[in-house]
């Protein structure tokens, strides 16, 4: 019964996400609505962790395999890419690295700033550990 219940709850959240996508005219997919709702449900205690955990982690674990069919589809689109090949190459390599570095460093700077102001305000020494700052 455990897996049945977990699978049922996960499917229900997926379905609610789908309904929201139909109702809200934004280009946000069902999965994002579902994920946010499930997170809220877990935080508020409407859904307990043990009601979704094993089946949920199974789905997360097999996730890489789920991307394979779409990614293999790239083999049919080689011609379409040829037109703007230079822009595409720059976008997928350079821009991806720039985005990664910008996000990472901005986060590190902000965490450092945040820890410094917190230390000024009160003298807890467990904060460094909580934020995993090195």
């Amino acid at each position, binding site marked *: 019964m455990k897996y049945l219940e977990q699978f049922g709850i*996960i499917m229900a959240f997926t379905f609610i996400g789908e309904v929201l996508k139909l109702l809200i005219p934004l280009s946000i997919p069902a*999965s994002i609505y579902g*994920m946010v709702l499930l997170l809220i449900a877990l935080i508020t205690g409407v859904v307990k962790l043990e009601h979704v955990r094993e089946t949920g982690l199974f789905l997360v674990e097999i996730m890489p395999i789920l991307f394979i069919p779409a990614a293999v589809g790239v083999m049919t689109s080689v011609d379409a890419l040829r037109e*703007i090949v230079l*822009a595409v190459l720059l976008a997928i390599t350079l*821009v991806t*690295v720039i*985005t990664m570095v910008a996000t990472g460093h901005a986060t590190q700077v902000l*965490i450092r700033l945040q820890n410094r102001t917190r230390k000024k305000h009160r003298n807890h020494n467990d904060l460094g550990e909580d934020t995993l700052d090195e």
Partner: protein
Amino acid sequence: MNDFMIKSLFFGMVVSVLSYMAASAIKKKWKHAALNPLLIAIIIVIAILKFCHISYETYNEGARYLGYLLTPATVCLAIPLYEQLNLLRKNALAIIGGIFVGTATGMASIFAIAKILHLSHAEYVTLLPKSVTTAIGLGISEELGGMVTISVVVIIITGIIGNLFANVVCKVFRIQNPIAKGLAIGTSAHAIGTVKAFEMGEVEGAMSSLAIVIAGILTVVGAPIFSHLL
């Protein structure tokens, strides 16, 4: 051969799963960082299809059902995220700020490339949502008048590149904090990158999952603004 495969629903699925298992075994045996299981699996599948003269449509007839599971699997990313909730609460401002900077920088870089290479508006908006998860990026590209099929391909390759380079980029550019690593990967390489983030650690994986959501929403809001620039 093709005839039987068209009738077989599970051929595509079995090929995908077995290829991934083979790729994982290869990774385990040689343990080299450049051996990316997802990329190797994709190459194995393409090689098998080419070698056996099986068309993508035939393969996808069955394999696409795997893709249907992507929606509930993404919903379940809420679970690792919930398990890291304390971290999220304590660093909320830094997290949102970091993702905001990354998303804006990414779109500004695409704008710069479009300007330098004299891309048309359609080509520009095709590339604009390249770092967000496929389902969001596809919608944005369509709405702004981009070429949707190319957007999807570019988004997927972006994810694979991010997945491949994440370790090296974090090392070379000294992104050391696990929160920062996870957010950097999720913001630049969405769900496919998140696979790598989970390999790095639980914190990285959870933060990368979070970044998919926030970067996705920021791009839904920001892309139409960037779209007006060219």
